[in-house]
C-alpha cells in the first residue's frame, strides 16, 4: 500500500465531503430564507441567489478542504446569532474521516449516503425555531488542534476564533447520522436549553 495513494483517495472523500458541506450549509441557511432551486447529487437543493452569499459559503466550505484532508476537523457548525450576539441555534456536522480505508469506497456510494442528509435537511424546517429579528449567522469549524499559522495558503480564509458557549448544556436534536467506514458524519441541531432560552427571549419582549 502506497501511503501517497491513501492520501489521495482520502482526499477524494474529503473533496466530496466539502462539496457536500457547501450544499448542506446552504440548505441550512435556506431553511430561513428564499433560495433558488438547483440540482446536486441528482436531487433538488437550494442555492443562494446572492453572489456574495454564495461566495461566502463556497469559500468557507472549500477553505476547509485542507483541514479535512488532514483529518483536523472535528465539527463544523452553522451558528445563528441573535441581534445581541447570542447564538440561538447551531447545526453541527460532526465528522470523522478514516483515511486508511477511504480507498475502498466508491464515490457513488458515498454520494448516495450523503444524499440522505440533504433529503432529511430539506424536510427539517419543523425542527428549527423561528428566529428573532435581524439575526446573523456564521460557519465555525472546530479543529482537533490548531493548524500551524501560515502552513498553507488555503487555510488563510479561516481565522481562529473564540466560541461562545451557552451557560448550560444545549438541547440536541439529531437530524441524520451516517456511520460507515471512511466517513462518520452526524448532523444534529443544538438549541439553548429551556431555561436559557427563556432568559434570552425575555429581554427582547
Amino acid at each position, binding site marked *: 500500500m502506497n501511503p501517497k495513494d491513501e492520501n489521495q483517495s482520502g482526499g477524494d472523500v474529503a473533496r466530496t465531503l466539502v462539496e457536500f458541506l457547501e450544499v448542506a450549509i446552504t440548505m441550512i441557511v435556506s431553511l430561513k430564507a428564499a433560495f433558488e432551486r438547483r440540482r446536486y447529487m441528482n436531487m433538488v437543493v437550494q442555492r443562494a441567489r446572492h453572489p456574495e452569499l454564495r461566495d461566502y459559503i463556497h469559500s468557507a466550505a472549500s477553505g476547509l478542504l485542507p483541514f479535512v484532508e488532514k483529518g483536523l476537523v472535528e465539527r463544523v457548525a452553522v451558528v445563528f446569532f441573535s441581534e445581541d450576539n447570542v447564538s440561538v441555534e447551531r447545526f453541527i456536522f460532526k465528522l470523522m474521516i478514516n483515511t486508511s480505508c477511504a*480507498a475502498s469506497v466508491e464515490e457513488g456510494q458515498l454520494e448516495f449516503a450523503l444524499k440522505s442528509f440533504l433529503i432529511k435537511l430539506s424536510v427539517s424546517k419543523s425542527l428549527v425555531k423561528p428566529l428573532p429579528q435581524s439575526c446573523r449567522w456564521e460557519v465555525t469549524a472546530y479543529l482537533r488542534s490548531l493548524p500551524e499559522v501560515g502552513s498553507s495558503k488555503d487555510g488563510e480564509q479561516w481565522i481562529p476564533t473564540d466560541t461562545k458557549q451557552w451557560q448550560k448544556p444545549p438541547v*440536541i436534536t439529531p437530524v441524520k*447520522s451516517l456511520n460507515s467506514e471512511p466517513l462518520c458524519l*452526524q448532523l444534529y441541531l443544538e438549541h439553548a436549553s429551556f431555561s436559557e432560552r427563556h432568559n434570552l427571549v425575555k429581554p427582547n419582549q
Partner: protein
Amino acid sequence: MKRSFGSNSSNNSGSGSNKKSKKKNNPSNQKTLGAAWGAASSRSSFRSAPFSDFGSYMEVKNRKLQNQFETEASATSHGVSGSEKLIFQGVSIFVDGFTIPSHQELKGYMMKYGGRFENYFSRRSVTHIICSNLPDSKVKNLRAFSRGLPVVKPTWIVDSISANRLLGWVPYQLDQLNDTQPKLSAFFSPGSHLTPQMASPVTSCQPDTGYSEAEEGSSIRAEDSEEARDNVNDEIDGVFIENTTAELTEETGTGDLKSSETNPERLCNYDIEEKEVTSEIQSTTNLHSASDNKSFHANGKNAGKATVAGSSTRRHSTLEDPNFVENYFKNSRLHFIGTWRNRYRKRFHGSSNGLKWADSGQNTAEVDKKSTIIHIDLDCFFVSVVIKNRLELHDKPVAVCHSDNPKGTAEISSANYPARAYGVKAGMFVRHAKDLCPQLVIVPYNFEAYEEVADQFYDILHRHCRKVQALSCDEAFLDVSDLRDVEPEFLASTIRNEILETTGCSASAGIGGTMLMARLATRVAKPAGQLYISAEKVEEFLDQLPVGTLPGVGSVLKEKLVKQNIQTCGQLRLISKDSLQKDFGVKTGEMLWSYSRGLDLRSVTAVQESKSIGAEVNWGVRFRDQQDVQHFLQCLCKEVSLRLQGCEMIGRTFTLKIKKRKKDAEEPTKYMGCGDCDNLSRSITVPAATDDVEVLQRISKKLFGSFCLDVKEVRGVGLQVSKLDSADLSNKGSRTLKSWLSSAPASVQIEQDDNVFSAVVRENSDRNRHVAGGVSRLRESNSAESSIQSGDTNSSLPPMCHLDMEVLENLPPELLSELDGTYGGKLYELIEKKRGKRKINNSSPHVSLDGTTAGIKELKPLSVKIHGLSTSGEKEYKKPFVPHLSTARASIQHTIDMTDLMPSSLSQVDVSVLQELPEELRADVLGAFPAHRRQQSSSDVPMETCKKQDEEPIDIKGTENENGFSYRSLWFGNPPLWTEKFKVSGNCTLEFFSETYYKVAQSRPMLSPVLQHAISEIGIFHDASANDLDEAINNMCELLKQYIKLKVEGDIEEIYLCFRLLKRLAARSQFFLQVYEILSPFIQATINEHYGGSLSIP
C-alpha cells in the same frame, strides 16, 4: 408545460407524423383515434374512456414516448457503427428512482444495445425493474410493487454492457431484497474474480424475495462450466503450442486450421514446408504480386523471422498458425526495438531522473553556440553482435535476415561493411543480395545477445555522461556541453574504445554543435571512426551535402527539391526562409532552412514517456473468415495487454489500424508481405482506463466490425492504446476490503509475535539459543501463514486458528456476525472465551499478549513458555477454566526447566483452543506430546475437557453478567446474543422483542424498528407477573444501555429515534414506563458525555 403541450398536439386529431408512425408500428391499432383511446383504458389503470381523461392521455403519451424511443434508438444504432451487439434484445426496463448511472444514461444504453426503456411501469411491457434503492414500504410490499418482475440494480446493465452479453440478473438483485449488505463471504467465495459486488452472494436467501437458491446455484454452475470451457481452451492452446514447437516430425495439414490432422510421415524440412505453404496460398488466393509496401520500408524491413537453422517448423500466416501473433512478436526485430525502449526506461530512467536535468531546458537554449553533442552509433549492430563470437565471419560479407530460404523473398535487415561493399543494403531482398554477392552469409537474429550488448552500451554511456538520449538500442545522443574539462573528441574515443572492449562491437561517433551536425558527422565517420565538425566547419561540411541525407527529407520532399534544382544543402541555403515556407509549408520550410545551416533547436532529453502503446502486425496476415479475425484479434489484444502491463500503464483510447489491400494491388513480392495497402484506422475512447485483455478484445472486435471489411482483403492489423495513465495510480479505486483483510491481519500478527519473542528472549538469556531456534521456526510458520491468508481470501476461509483475535474484536458487530456465520457460529464462542479469560486473567502481566495472540499461538512453544514463566498468572488463568485438571498443575514448575518445544502436558494447553483446531491439527498436536504424558492425557482428557468446555460458556455468561461485562457482548453475533436470551426468558415482552428482531433485522439490524413494532402491538404486554417483571426490566435496560453505548459514537439519530419511541411506549405501558425512567437519565448522560448536550424531548 412541455408535457401538456405534447399531449395537445397529439390530441388534435393526431398530428400527421405521429399517426403515420403509429400505423407503421402497430398496424392492429388502426382505428380512429377516439376508438384507440377507448381501447387504451383497458391498459391503463384508469377506467373511463373520454379523451380528457388521464388514462387515455397516458395511453397516447406512452405510445408517443415509445415512438420517440424507437426513432432515437434506430438513429443511434445507425449513427455509431451498426455493429453494436443487441445484447438487451427483449429486455425492457423501467427505472425506479435515483440510480447511478442516471435513468437518462440507462435509457441511452438501452437504445444502443437493442433494449427497451419504459417511462411508465406496466406489467405487460416491462421485463425488469431497475433501481438502486427502495423505500421500506415497497420492500415490504414487493409483489405489489414489482408484480413479480425482477428488481435489479443498475450495475446489471453496466456490467452486461461491459461483458457484451446479457448477464443473469440474479446476482444483481437489489440488495435490500436480498440482504442488507454485500456479504463478506463473497470475498471468500471461490467464484469472485472480478469485483466483489459482481460475485453472487453465497448466502441463504430469504423466503419472501421470490427467488430461490436453485437459481443462484445454476448461475454459479454456469460460470463454472464457462471456466471449464476456458480451461479446455487453454488446453487446446497448449496443444497448438506443442504443435508448433514439435519440430520437424509433425506438420499440420496445410492451410486448414480446423482439420489439423497431423501428418507424421511427412518429415519435411523448413524449405519444403515454406514452398508448400506458398503454393497453398497461391492456389487459394492467387494474389501474388510484386510491389513492396512503403510502410515496411519506413519501418525498416519487417520481421517475423524463422530461424535459419531451421529447427522448428513455423507456419507463416494467420491462416496456418494459431499462435501466429505470439510467434510473430517473438521473432520480430521491430518488436525487439520497441520493447527494448521500455527495458531501457526501466533500467536507466530512475537514475537520470534522480539527477534531474534541471538545467537542460534553458541551458542548451541559452548557450546554444557552445553546446557540444556526441552522436554515437554501433556499427551495423544487428550483424556485428551476432558475429562477434564467430571470428571466421569477421571479414566475410554477412547479413542478418529472418529467413534464409532459397526463394530469397525475405528482406535483409542489416548487412556488415564487407557486404555493403558489394552493394548489399538493408531492406534488400535476399535474392537480390545474393545476386550481388553470391558468398553472402545470412545469419539469424539473436535477440538475447542484442539485449545484452544494448545494456552494456548504455551502461558505458551513462557512466560517462549524464545527459543521454537513447534513440534506439544501438544509437544515442550525449550532451557533453557541461563537461568542459574533457575534450569531446577524447571523450568520444574513450567511449568508443570502451564499447569495443566490453561488447566486441565497434561504434562510430559524430561530434557537433547540434544534434543534427552530430548525426551527420557520424554518417561520415562510419565505420568505426569518429568525426568532429566544429562550428567553423559546418558550412563547409554542409555545402556539398546532398539534401536527401538530411533527416526529415524523404524521397518525396527530395524530389520536390530536385525539381527546383536544389541538390545540396549549399543550394538550399540560398533560398530564403519565407519562400521555403511558402513552398513546403511552415514547418517543413522552417526545418529545411535551419537544417541547411546546421541549426537544430532540439536538445538532448531523456527518453520520453511513450504516448501510446500498441502492437501491429502487417506481415503474414491472411484471413479466411470472421473466425480467423476474431482469433487473431484475441492474440493481438493479449500482446497489447502484456505490453501495457509491462509498462505499468493503462489506457483509455484504443485505435485499430487496418491495412487493406488496394483494389488493384497484386500479391506482394515479399513473401506474405502486405503489399500495396490502404491504411484505415478507427478509435474509440472509453471512460475507464484499462489494460484488461477482455476489454481490449471486445473493443477491438467492435472496432474491426465497424470497418465493414472483407476479411480476405486485410493485410495488416494494429492496435494502439493511448491516453495512457500509470496503472498503479488508478488502481487505488479498486482496492477493496479484500486486500485489507488479507494484508493487515498477517502483519499485525507477526508484529505481535515478535514482541512476545523479544520479551521472552530478554527473560531467558540463558536459553538464548533455543529461543532463537524457536523464533526462526515460528517466523517460518508465520510467513507461511500469511501467505496462506493472502491466497485464501480468494478461495476459502482461513482456518479459525489463523484469525487475529484483536482484529476480530475490533470489527464492527455486523461484520463480525457475518464472519461468524461463515465459520458456522464458532467464532463467537472463541471470542467469548477469550474475553472471559482476559477478564479473569487481568492480574497477570501477560494479559495483553494472551488476549491478543490468536488461538494457535497458545499452542506454540513460546507462548507456552510465557505461561510457564509467570506461574502466578498461570494459576489464576487456569483455575476458572480447567479446574478439573488440577492434578496436572504441578507440572507448571516443570515447564520452566523444559527445553522441549512442546508443553509438557495437556494442562498447559488451552483446551478451548484445542477444541477449535481442525481435526488433523489436533491429532498432530496431541501426537507431539511427550509419550509419558500422552498416556495419561491424550485419550480421555481431551474428550473430557472438550465436553466440559461445551458447558463452560453458560458459566462464563453467568459470571460475566455479575461482573458487568463488555458493553458489546449482548449485541454480539447475528442474531445477537440477547435474542436467544430473551427468547427463553419466559417474559412475553422480551420474547416479542426477540421475535420482532429476527423479522426486521435482516433488512436493518437496528432496535428502532423493533420498538416501532412494539408500539403497534402494545396491547399484548400485560401479563407480566410481578416477580419476573423486575428481571425483565433489568434485562431490557441492559439491552438498551448496551445498544446506546454501541451507537452513541456514530449514530445518535438511531438513539434519538429509540428514545422517542421508548417515550411513546412508556405512555402506554407500565413496563416501558419503568424502563424509560431508568434509561432516560442514562441516555442524557451518555449524550452529554459525547456531545456536550442533552437530547431534546419533544
